[in-house]
């Protein structure tokens, strides 16, 4: 009986471990090389003069991600020149949702005139490394001597529908704080978003 309980406990801890994998605040990010909508590959190391990055997991179809498209573009417009470019990654599998295909990503990027890369993540490799669970899901990175360190994880703001009178811009605040050498006061937030459409089988 004791062994059974122990086994059940181990199983449970394995499950909870699986749920918490992915980067946490303070972790160093492994660089990646993913195909952009212009068919060229993009790595974090390509941005020689970056002070950090705003990595946004977003997609073509999710209504929440769509509601934030303009705000993601605005983040890049404000912060790319300050050394914090937006790097968008689509974590979804086109086999699971056809509208998430590379061609549809290209169409969206050209229609909305994305000024930032919009990358395909085949087999969810980078998505799993980050531990992204939904779209939109943001990771703000700070470039340091030891690598690109995760300093903020979560939502863009607390106002998906642009109806919150007391809106807080979490990503803007985090980047502003990092740019003056401070740690973000709010380092992680929660948000409702669309679950990632994982590859079947």
């Amino acid at each position: 009986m004791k062994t059974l309980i122990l086994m059940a406990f181990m199983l449970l801890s394995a499950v909870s471990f699986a749920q918490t994998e992915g980067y946490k605040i303070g972790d160093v990010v492994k660089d990646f090389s993913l195909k952009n909508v212009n068919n060229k590959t993009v790595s974090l190391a390509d941005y020689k003069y970056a002070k950090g990055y705003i990595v946004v997991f977003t997609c073509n179809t999710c209504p929440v991600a769509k509601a934030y498209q303009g705000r993601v573009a605005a983040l890049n417009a404000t912060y790319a020149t300050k050394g914090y470019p937006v790097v968008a990654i689509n974590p979804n599998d086109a086999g699971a949702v056809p509208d998430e295909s590379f061609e549809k990503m290209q169409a969206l990027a050209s229609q909305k005139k994305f000024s930032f890369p919009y990358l395909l993540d085949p087999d969810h490799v980078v998505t799993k490394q980050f531990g992204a669970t939904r779209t939109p899901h943001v990771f703000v990175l700070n470039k340091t001597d030891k690598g690109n360190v995760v300093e903020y994880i979560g939502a863009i703001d607390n106002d998906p529908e642009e109806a919150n009178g007391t809106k807080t811009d979490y990503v803007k605040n985090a980047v502003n704080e990092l740019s003056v050498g401070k740690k973000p006061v709010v380092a992680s937030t929660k948000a409702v978003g669309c679950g990632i459409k994982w590859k079947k089988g």
Partner: protein
Amino acid sequence: MRIFLIICLSLITYSVNAQVKLLKLDDLDKRIANGKDTTYVINFWATWCSPCVAELPNFEKLRLASLKKPVKVLLVSLDFKSKLLKEVIPFVEKNKINAEVFLLNEPDQQQYIERIDKKWSGAIPATLFVNKKSRRFYEKEFTEAELNSTLLNLK
């Protein structure tokens, strides 16, 4: 005659609006507190969330099986408020959902996510089993059997 018309009119508006009501968490808390021995099975979903839509029939089965028990199934949509008339109500009509359906009317998701459950990441589907004595929150999809057993094991 005029009174009759007013009654008819209010009945019509009531039946239209009654399908999906806007919900504040304060009102939900009050309802639970006044629910005596009722256990509320509160599912958080959205029309755009495909796993949520897929599991909705399981909640309908639970509702039907629990009609004579002190169990209430509440479906709380996290769709945008602006989608109430265009998407949520048509969805409820089309799928003939008979459970009580609400649309969460809370502007600050940071606040309401924490308030519903500290462990919740905000991902849906998620379901809260709650009565006056216990509160269990699950960020997962439920089969019909899992719904039944979770309800049975709730103290």
